């Protein structure tokens, strides 16, 4: 197990290296000039050239890469061209809103979707099952910004229960924090509820046809025990995989939700950085996303051992 863990951790290094190299090259090869962005609309060509020099963008691409990689080895992600702030500071400022939103969303999704999926499998072909399938189609099909605006209109503007936008940090109190994140989390969780519920249903449905389920029922175990202890436990591996992927996707993929609800998270930071051609920030956040993906995948793999003792590394 430890050997597996060590090998997996070691394998993140080439992944991160390749990702950083690709991102670095792609950014330099795409059109757009950070110096022109910084200089403003009324700036002269001379001013833009001066800014380009001051940022080191007049150096060759290999030269720029080795300077950046050298700093990276010391844990320095560089300074944002746009915000003139350390990239690590920017990421640290934006991490809390995104992680908060991701955690609440995935918690909400799991708490709703897993029982729903189990129930739908248990009552296969019944109204609950059909209802869940219908909801899944809607959950997948309706874009996040549409459900966001609809929820804002109903919950915030008509009923006045929750705020339209904004984020309060945990340091301001759990109440304000939850108050501001509830609606964005509900919006975002719709897709994940649909996804996790479908996978849970399919997975549990498969296990419900197994011999050991029939045996458990024959032994006279209560149906709840059969479902939770035998069916769900054996169906957990694909569900854990989907939840893991969901968490990883949430960390980097909440751009629309963050925009509509004005949450200053990593998604918005990434979009702003791309629009401003803020190379150090883009490189920094993509490295972070890659790291999160690798780590979440590792945790998902490790969780298999917990759910299925037959799996060994």
């Amino acid at each position: 197990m430890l050997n597996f863990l060590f090998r997996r951790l070691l394998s993140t290094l080439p992944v991160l290296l390749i990702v950083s190299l690709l991102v670095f090259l792609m950014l330099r090869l795409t059109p757009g000039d950070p110096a022109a962005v910084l200089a403003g609309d009324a700036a002269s060509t001379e001013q833009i050239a001066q800014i380009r020099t001051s940022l080191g963008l007049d150096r060759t691409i290999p030269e720029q890469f080795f300077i950046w990689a050298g700093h990276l080895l010391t844990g320095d992600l560089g300074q944002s061209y746009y915000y003139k702030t350390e990239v690590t500071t920017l990421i640290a400022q934006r991490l809390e809103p995104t992680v908060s939103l991701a955690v609440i969303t995935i918690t909400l999704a799991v708490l709703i979707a897993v029982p729903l999926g189990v129930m739908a499998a248990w009552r296969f072909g019944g109204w609950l099952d059909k209802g869940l399938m219908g909801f899944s189609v809607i959950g997948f099909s309706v874009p996040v910004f549409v459900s966001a605006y609809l929820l804002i209109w109903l919950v915030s503007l008509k009923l006045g229960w929750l705020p339209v936008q904004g984020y309060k940090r945990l340091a301001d109190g759990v109440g304000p924090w939850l108050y501001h994140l509830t609606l964005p989390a509900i919006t975002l969780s719709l897709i994940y509820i649909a996804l996790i519920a479908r996978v849970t249903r399919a997975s549990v449905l498969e296990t419900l046809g197994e011999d050991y389920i029939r045996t458990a029922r024959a032994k006279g175990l209560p149906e709840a025990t059969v479902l939770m202890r035998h069916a769900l436990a054996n169906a957990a591996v694909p569900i854990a995989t989907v939840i893991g992927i969901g968490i990883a996707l949430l960390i980097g993929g909440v751009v629309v939700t963050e925009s509509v609800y004005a949450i200053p998270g990593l998604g918005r930071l990434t979009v702003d950085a791309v629009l401003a051609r803020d190379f150090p920030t883009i490189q920094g956040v993509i490295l972070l996303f890659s790291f999160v993906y690798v780590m979440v995948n590792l945790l998902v793999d490790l969780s298999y051992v917990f759910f299925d003792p037959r799996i060994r590394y």
Partner: protein
Amino acid sequence: MKFSRRLAAVAALTAVSALSLGTSLPVLAQGTVLRVVPHSNLAILDPIWTTAYMSRNHGYMIYDTLFGTDENGKVKPQMVDTWTVSGDNRLYTFKLRKGLEFHDGKPVTGDDVIASLTRWGKRDAMGQALFQFVQRMDSPAPDTFRIFLGEACGFVIEALGKPGSSVPFIMPKRVAETDAFKQIEEHIGSGPYVFKRDEFKPGDKAVYTKFAKYVPRSEPPSGTTGGKNVYVDRVEWNLALRDAQAQVNALQKGEVDVIEALGFDHFATVKADTTLQMPKYANFGLQYMARFNHLHKPFDNVKVRQAAIAAMTQEPFLRASVGVKELYKTCPSMFICGTPFGSTAGSDIQAKSNMRKAQALLKASGYDGTPIVIMKPTDLASIQKLPDVAAQLLRQAGFKVDLQAMDWQTLVGRRAKKDAPDKGGWHMFLTAWQTFDVWNPISNPTMDTRGEKSTWFGWATDDKLVELRNQFMRATDEGAKKKLADQIHARAFEVGTHAPLGEYMQPMAARKNISGFFVTNGNIYWNLKKN
């Protein structure tokens, strides 16, 4: 069962109340907070280093200026109390108002002014123009400074009071001595608000608190002049709220107080809402413009440029981009209608044009069918429809058009390239300017026609225009300046520097409990009260 439901309902209500209470407590502790949604994100905190309007607006919050420009475009003293000009117009002596103090408690002195002007003069186009004439500056007394000119020029006061981008804000000497090509690290001014650096979160929030020791002028506020009275304790710029629909939702719900730039699509919604208002804050709006690249075929040919100007009449652009009739007007002046130098001289080629004339002009120009590369920004709602209109009108006139879509920042990077259009360059782009950046021949960047030495993209070449502009800089008589401005305007149309595409007002929206709005011709947050 009934008990459980009741208990759940009570628990839910308690939770919602607790959550609501939790959000209101910090606001109470902060006094009156004006919550503003600015037109863009604030990233760069040095308003001299960049020409970005957001940085300029940040500058107006925390810095003061020597002179300001009132609602009608007239320059008036602000930090300056009195001033004299020598008979030969070569020595300007300024005395500062009493009680001017920086946020760190130190008095504003002539040395601070000199250092600030010196740095500004290295960055701003108008500042650079002024410093061609400045021989030296000194401060004979702490509250006095003098500008010695090598040769008389007629725009010293206009330059010091300019309200467009790169405003000559006054900073402490130690800050202003920062290399003009590096950003400042300290953000201390003597303006009506103090910047809360510790609360600034890029892309999230910028906070300004009232500077209690600020001594406002006694005159009523007008433009960037007059009394900068502050009636709120704190101004918060919401930098995260950038979705136009979400902005309106937040305003309707009362979560923000002011939207600086209301989208045209939401004009009717806000107008119909009795809890909201759209205060008049500007006499002059913005100007759309199409800029040609004069370096390459076919726009190196003046006749082709004239044909393009004749084809691009203003109404179609305004209708497509703004849409709300009461917010736009056609205006043949490159220097904005109604401003001191607003002129119509030479504008008939566009103002009295029609498509037949444009077609005839193009035919006579010898246009060889080179496709016109128009850069179209896809992510900037305020101008993204303009290139489509331009493409259609130019096609109707007989041009071949290659409309290339890209995001604004790609466009901004590409327009700085002098390469041929088929090698990564361009022929034409369209943009919008705030009035005070284009309202006179010195500040208007398109009037710089020194070819590749020009400070702005497009690199127009015309020696006669250069000469007229030089004469304008040296003219000290208002009548002579106006006459020269007319000549410059006529010449600019004659050589086809660019095409003005009409003027529009960007509406501002606010809740009804906010009062004290006045004509600022910009985005300024003093004099406002929150009831």
